[in-house]
């Protein structure tokens, strides 16, 4: 073979590579495959640089480059580069989020006192199947299911992937379920609406054998809700024997304790920072 022949081949090949071009669409939906047309001839190398993935492969110039759907799951700007023996050419395109199909739902707080104005904040973040935030406005349906009431619904358009509602807690204690749904996705959170501090805390005493039974009236907040069981009520008795204190949790709505008593005694009651009535009793 004459030495000038390979050099000619290389020159021809370089010319054809220089003429190579790529044609990619400006925008693609996440999770869909893509075909990028090329021209020219010979072998080349194709690079795809995305927000979360980089790939490289050898291709035949002049044919279509097929990019699989799983390579385009993350929304964002992608850069496609085609390199042949004489140089590289590049193009970029956007991958946008697919249809809304997932939700992240944040409800705060998880426990709220009853009748608290704008006390519950519910925020829904709208995502597609591939966890891309869907920036396009989409209707999000919020539902509120009180413990003993009918379901309430409200729809809000998401803005930049976020939709939210604020609401006032119910006047009655108990669990309420707050949900949000978009596409095929729905999420539910539980908010516990709890009674406020005890209101009008009162005790009464009666004699049981040789001891004194001291018990509260049913402990309720100022809205009439029963203060939850387990809430501590502190009884303090001062008599000739000294002072006696007992922290008693409320059980079935009331707190009670039996105490031995010597002579005259004064009994007081408190729950947290709330104080109740005092009793003067005389023992044996």
């Amino acid at each position, binding site marked *: 073979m004459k030495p000038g022949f390979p050099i000619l081949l290389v020159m021809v090949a370089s010319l054809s590579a220089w003429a190579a071009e790529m044609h990619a669409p400006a925008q693609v939906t996440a999770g869909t495959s893509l075909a990028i047309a090329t021209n020219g001839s010979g072998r080349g190398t194709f690079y795809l640089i995305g927000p979360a993935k980089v790939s490289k492969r050898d291709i035949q110039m002049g044919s279509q480059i097929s990019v699989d759907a799983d390579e385009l799951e993350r929304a964002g700007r992608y850069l496609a580069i085609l390199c042949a023996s004489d140089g590289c050419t590049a193009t970029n395109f956007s991958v946008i989020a697919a249809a809304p199909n997932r*939700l*992240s*739902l*944040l*409800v*705060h*707080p*998880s*426990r709220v006192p009853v009748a608290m104005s704008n006390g519950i904040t519910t925020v829904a*973040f709208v995502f597609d199947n591939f966890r891309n935030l869907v920036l396009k406005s989409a209707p999000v349906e919020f539902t509120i299911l009180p413990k003993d009431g009918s379901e309430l619904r409200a729809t809000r358009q998401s803005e930049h992937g976020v939709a939210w509602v604020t609401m006032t807690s119910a006047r009655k204690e108990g669990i309420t379920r707050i949900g949000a749904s978009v596409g095929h996705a729905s*999420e539910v*959170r539980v908010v*516990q609406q*709890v*009674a406020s*501090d*005890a209101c009008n805390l009162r005790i009464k005493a009666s004699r049981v054998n040789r001891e004194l039974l001291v018990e509260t009236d049913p402990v309720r907040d100022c809205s009439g809700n029963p203060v*939850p*069981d*387990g*809430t*501590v*009520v*502190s009884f*303090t008795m001062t008599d000739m*024997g*000294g*002072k*006696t*204190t*007992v*922290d*008693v*949790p409320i*059980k079935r709505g009331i707190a009670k*304790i039996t*105490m*031995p008593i010597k002579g005259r005694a004064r009994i007081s009651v408190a*729950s*947290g*920072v709330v104080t109740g009535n005092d009793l003067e009793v005389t023992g044996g």
Partner: protein
Amino acid sequence: MKNVLAVFIVLATGLFVVLAWFQSGGGERRQMRSASTPEQAARFLLSEIQDRNFERAYEQLANRSDVDKKTFIREFNGSDGSLLTYASLETFDVWGLRTDAQEASVRARLHYTTAVGPLDDVRDIKLERRGETWKVLWPVNPTPKLPPQVIPVNYLRWDVINPRDGDDWGVQSVDSPQVRIISMNAISRPDSVVLVGEVVNEDSVPAYVNVGATLLDASGAELAQESSFDKISHTLLPKQVSPYRIDFPNLRLERVKKVRMDVKALLESASADPVIEISQQKIETDPLGKQVLSGQLVNESGQVVNIPHVIAAYYDSNGKVIWVSDGYVAQALLPQVPVPFAVDLPAEVAKNVHSYRVVVNHFNTTAQT
């Protein structure tokens, strides 16, 4: 010459052995065994207890027939997971109170080292003369026993379900409990600054609470940072109030311009049981002449409380917290059995105390189901 050196070495060795024996208390022990005085008899008994020779200590008692050996050993060795099971008698002091021809009484202060720090116990011991020696008359206190029975316990228990590793973002946890410091008072002590006050759990769930504080000087620079450590009841049920105390050793209050309080609360699985009654509380002077707040604890539930911890808040006439003191109780709380307690109160504080409030914290050394 060679023999003289050998004799000298043997004599010197013998001398050192004798010196070492005296140094290790051998002479004292021998003197104590003779128990020719009430103090010596009490010291001998306590030294046997210190060496954990409970059998030999028991043999020293004058009234062995009245004292149950196991009960005697339990008094020093602990039982039911009590603090004494994690303690050893480190030192003791004995001094005479009264002596006549046949009877005497001495006072002993026992100093234990325990898992939670030092613990002092003061006991008055009676002795009687038996021939040439004195023997200890151990007090016969029949331990109250609760008849076998079933005590139904149906108080609430709270469990917490936390988010798991594989959960999506946005599967939120439940909120931390709402707790609030309801009072704080900075007190100047001769060698320290002390912060005392109270904290309340305002929430409807139990909270694990810790209170910390940072002292700042006039330029805003940090002087010291401390936490309440064990001078607080960490587990607070809904609406429960606990005193707290934070000690800043080697600091003067004059240097402190600002105090930054920090209360941390975490959700905690807890039970409303056991309920502990604190009865017969009174401020009195103990046998050593110190002011103490004493009383007795009664475990109202059916489970044993291994290590009770008493925390007391003292208020002045304006209702301000002026001191917080605490103390561990050596005995476990068996159901319905009263156990005495006493916590120290500084004399200069005692004269200003108008009222007080006591809470009981407890630690269990065995898992409860």
